[in-house]
Every structure is written in C-alpha cells, then in structure tokens.
C-alpha cells in the first residue's frame, strides 16, 4: 500500500531532476529572503546560481542548532509573517528552544509525509488513530494529527499521559493505530498486562513510534505486549517534525521523503560527505518548505543511508536505525559509549528492566559510571548472594557491549524518571 506512488517510486533520474530543481528554488528563496543565509553565502562568495548539480550542495555551509537559537524566535522566516499559520518549538532542555514556523503549504507537506507513513503502517480512511504523542509546542502530536487529517482517517487527539484513559480508549474505540514515543508504548504495554486486559479486548494493529532512541529488543517487547507491528518514525522540530522518514512493513530502514528533504551523511569530525552505507551524521536540507526553509542542517543523529530500491517497491532512500547522537555520545574513560548500548546490554539479561539511568561522575581524576537499573520480581531474591550475582551478570553484559566496567545499582521499580515525554537516560556530573 503506497500513498503516493508517483512520488515514492520515482526512478533515480526522475528523482534527481526534481531534487535539483527544488534545491535550486529553495536556495534562491533562502538567499533572497533570509539575512542569515545571505550573510553565510556572501562570506564565502557563494551565489545561488553556483548550485548547478546536486553535488554542489556540498558548497553550502552547514546550519546548526545554535544558529537556530541565535535566530530565536522568528529570525529565519522566508515569507512575511502573515503567511505563517502555525508554530512549533523544541523543548529547550539543552538551551533556548528552537522554533519552526509553517505556512499552509508547509503544513500540507507535513500532512503528506505523515500520510505516507500511516499508509506504510497499513492505515486506511476508516482507521482510528490513537494519537498519544503530546499535543502542544512539541511537533509529535500535531504532526501526526495533520497526517491523519490528510489521509481522512479518524484521529483521536488523546495526547500523552493518562494511562487509564489510553487503555479505555483502546478498548472502547477499538483503536487501530497507536502513535506515541516508544517508551510510552512500552509503558502502555506493561500497564495493559498489569490491568489484566487481554490482547483480544483491544484491536491495535500498528504502532508508529519515534522521537527518542529505541532498540530492536524494545521493539520486540512493544510488539508482544500490545500485539502490534511497530514502525519507526523519524523527524525533528528544526526540519519539520515527525514524518521526515518512516519504516515500511519491511522494517528495514526508514524511507526518507527525499522529494521533500535531501539527505546527506557526513563525517561529524570534519564535515566531509560520506557514501551510502557509511555511518555518520545525517544532514538534511528542505526542498519544498517555504516558511522556514533550512539548508544543510546538522541533525547530530548518527545513521547511514541505503540507496537501493526497497522490497516494498518504494525508491525513496532509506536511513538505518539511529545508532546514537554525535552529541549524546558519552566519552567515558576515553571510550565512546551510547546509551542505546546500555539498553541493549540490559535486554540481554533475562528479567532485567530496560529502564535505566547512566550516572557519570569524576570524583577524582577517573570517570566513574553507575548504571541504575530498576529491579523486577524476576531479579529479586531474599538472598544477598543471589542479588549480587544478578548485578554481576548485568555488569558483565554491559562490559561485553561497551568494554566498560560499571557499577550496577538495582533500584525500586518505576523509581526512574520515564515515559510520557522523553526518558532521561544520562546524568553527567563530570566537570570537564
């Protein structure tokens, strides 16, 4: 089932032609209307006319999150304010929020991208989409909503939280698709089991999850605890929101809507462009947005591209599961560690909960890592000896995954921060 076969199954030649036309148009729009881009281009003597091939995109300087922060709140508009119809913003947990403004055209594109993803997940016009992404400045809730509207499906704007109501809604409305963060999906699955609701009582078929990192082990748990097939979705506020890319039923890489967003992979250390298949940082350029076009945005997300045609028939380029963030990467005792590796290690220990918190300190000159893991009935024993065995087992699993010796502390269930928004996974208290 393909939402827009014409756009999603183009030949390489057709696509490159459209991408180049749209890139040239976007560059011109940005250069002529946004002070920031004009200054950046002029500094290196670059003119919009210099973009003659897709490869020429490499001449354009990168845009970073801090550039967007400096332009806060609406310094990067390419159109008069009267053309803007909606605004979203990042949470601003790591600094000033970054804002994205949309024209009606932009919202239509957003809805189109999401609708393509809903179709990949098997949704149809008569499907009920239980949208448990947060509604508000966060792009998750409204993004899915626009897509549901575009498809003409029935969107239930339940937003995140109120777990009891989520479960009631699944039963009463017989929702077909659940959209929310993976950690919340996992929580809902656990809550369903806890509440003694059988899988027969609910009718969920698919889950579209993203906005935070998750592993294939987590996927298995969500799929079995909710009886669904899950689809990884990708996007970011700075570029649009969710829907930039999503998995199809092959679950083999996320299809980037590359007629709307041009992807590149670069070496995060030196900015050099890498080939498909090579792992590096994803850089995105919007090709059709008019409100706030964005050129070569450094996403900080580490992934690689798959250029081959997918078994599903789509030719849109795919990106593999995000393996980490170039700024999320922890360097502990000189070793590169990603939180996802810890999660993977935990899921290998039977009975271990994938809810964890990495606490890094440097009391003296050496880094110390404590991994707090929620204990469970399976892990618990009345004997200290047995508990120590469990801690050692977790420790060994983390060691084989990351090469690091960490201190493992078991804590009470549901005592770690989690689930309705983005999960807090790392507390780094080193003064570097």
């Amino acid at each position, binding site marked *: 089932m393909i939402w827009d076969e014409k756009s999603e199954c183009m030949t390489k030649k057709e696509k490159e032609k459209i991408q180049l036309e749209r890139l040239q148009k976007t560059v011109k729009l940005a250069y002529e209307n946004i002070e920031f881009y004009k200054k950046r281009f002029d500094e290196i003597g670059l003119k919009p006319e210099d973009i003659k091939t897709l490869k020429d995109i490499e001449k354009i300087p990168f845009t970073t999150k801090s550039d967007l922060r400096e332009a806060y709140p609406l310094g990067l508009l390419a159109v008069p304010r009267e053309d803007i119809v909606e605004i979203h913003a990042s949470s601003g947990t790591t600094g000033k929020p970054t804002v994205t403004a949309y024209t009606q055209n932009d919202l239509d594109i957003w809805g189109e991208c999401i609708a393509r993803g809903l179709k990949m997940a098997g949704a149809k016009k008569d499907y009920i989409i239980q949208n448990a992404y947060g509604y508000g400045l966060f792009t998750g809730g409204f993004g899915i909503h626009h897509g549901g509207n575009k498809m003409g499906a029935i969107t239930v704007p339940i937003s995140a939280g109120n777990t009891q109501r989520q479960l009631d809604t699944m039963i009463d409305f017989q929702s077909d698709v659940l959209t929310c963060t993976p950690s919340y999906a996992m929580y809902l699955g656990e809550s369903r089991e806890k509440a003694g609701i059988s899988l027969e009582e609910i009718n969920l078929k698919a889950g579209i999850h993203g906005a935070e990192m998750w592993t294939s082990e987590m996927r298995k748990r969500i799929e079995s605890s909710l009886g669904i097939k899950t689809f990884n979705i990708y996007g970011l506020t700075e570029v649009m929101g969710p829907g930039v890319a999503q998995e199809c039923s092959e679950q083999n890489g996320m299809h980037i809507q590359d007629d709307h967003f041009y992807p590149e992979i670069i070496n995060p250390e030196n900015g050099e462009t890498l080939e498909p298949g090579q792992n590096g940082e994803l850089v995105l350029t919007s090709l059709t947005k008019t409100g706030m076009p964005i050129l070569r945005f450094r996403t900080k997300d580490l992934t690689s591209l798959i250029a081959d045609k997918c078994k599903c028939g789509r030719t849109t380029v795919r990106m593999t599961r995000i393996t980490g963030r170039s700024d999320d990467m922890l360097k502990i005792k000189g070793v590169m560690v990603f939180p996802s590796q810890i999660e993977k290690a935990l899921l290998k220990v039977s009975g271990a909960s994938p809810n964890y918190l990495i606490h890094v300190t440097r009391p003296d000159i050496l880094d110390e890592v404590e991994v707090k893991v929620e204990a469970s009935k399976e892990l618990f024993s009345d*004997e200290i000896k047995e508990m120590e065995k469990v801690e050692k087992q977790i420790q060994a699993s983390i060691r084989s995954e990351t090469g690091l010796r960490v201190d493992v502390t078991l804590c*009470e269930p549901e005592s770690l921060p989690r689930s309705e928004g983005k999960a807090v996974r790392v507390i780094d208290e080193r003064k570097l």
Partner: protein
Amino acid sequence: MATQISVFIENKEGRIKKAMDTLANAGVNIRALSVGDTTKYGILRLIVSDNETATKSLENDGFIVKESEVVVVAVPDKPNGLNSTLSILDDADINLEYIYAFVSSQPNEAIVAMKVEDTEKAIKVFEENNAKILKKEDLEKI
C-alpha cells in the same frame, strides 16, 4: 517450615517506614523481621500474620515482594541454646544462608528463622534430633 516474605528496599530515606505504613494500613501484623543490607539496598525479611494480604498491599504500593520458605525452630533460652541447634546443621553439612531470632510467648524459649541451602534435609535432621520445629499454626499463636 514457614513462609517468609522478602521486600526489596532501595537505600533511600524512609523506604522501610513506607513498607511498614503499607502493612499497617492493610492490618497486617509482623511476627518477626530482619534486614539484610548492602551499601546500595536492603532486603527486608518478614514473617507476618497474613502473607497474601501483605504481598498484595506491598505490590500495590510498588514494592517487589517474594515469598520463600524458611525453617523456624524454637531453641532453649539459655547459654548454648542456639549453638546446639546450629550444631545439628553443622554435623549434617548444611549451609546456612542467613538467620534471625525473635522472642516467643513461651518464657523458656527463643525462636530462630533460618534460610538453609537444603530445606528438606534440614527439617529431616532437626526432626531426627528432636528439635522443636514450628509450623504455620504454631507461628500464629506467638
């Protein structure tokens, strides 16, 4: 033999109190208690009046609870009393995992709860040596 319940207690202010509040609210009486502790967490071990109610109420309040079998023996309340009981285990080469004692309503005896490597074997040797093993019904009378 008796069933003991163990509760996982994070090393955090007020957690034991919280567990006690839960049991008090559920109307559960505690017969005996011991805490095995490490620097990071503790294991609260309890012999209570009503295991089912205790487990349910603690789990509802987010605690991890586990039931396990312990051997409960009355020992004479005099020097060498406990020692003679432990000698029985020792002679049979049975390892003791942990032990805790509590008072009895009988004036001349104390009660010990023991977690041993091999519960069945321990009961057998205690019986052979005429040690006074307390059962569930006996504990209810304490």
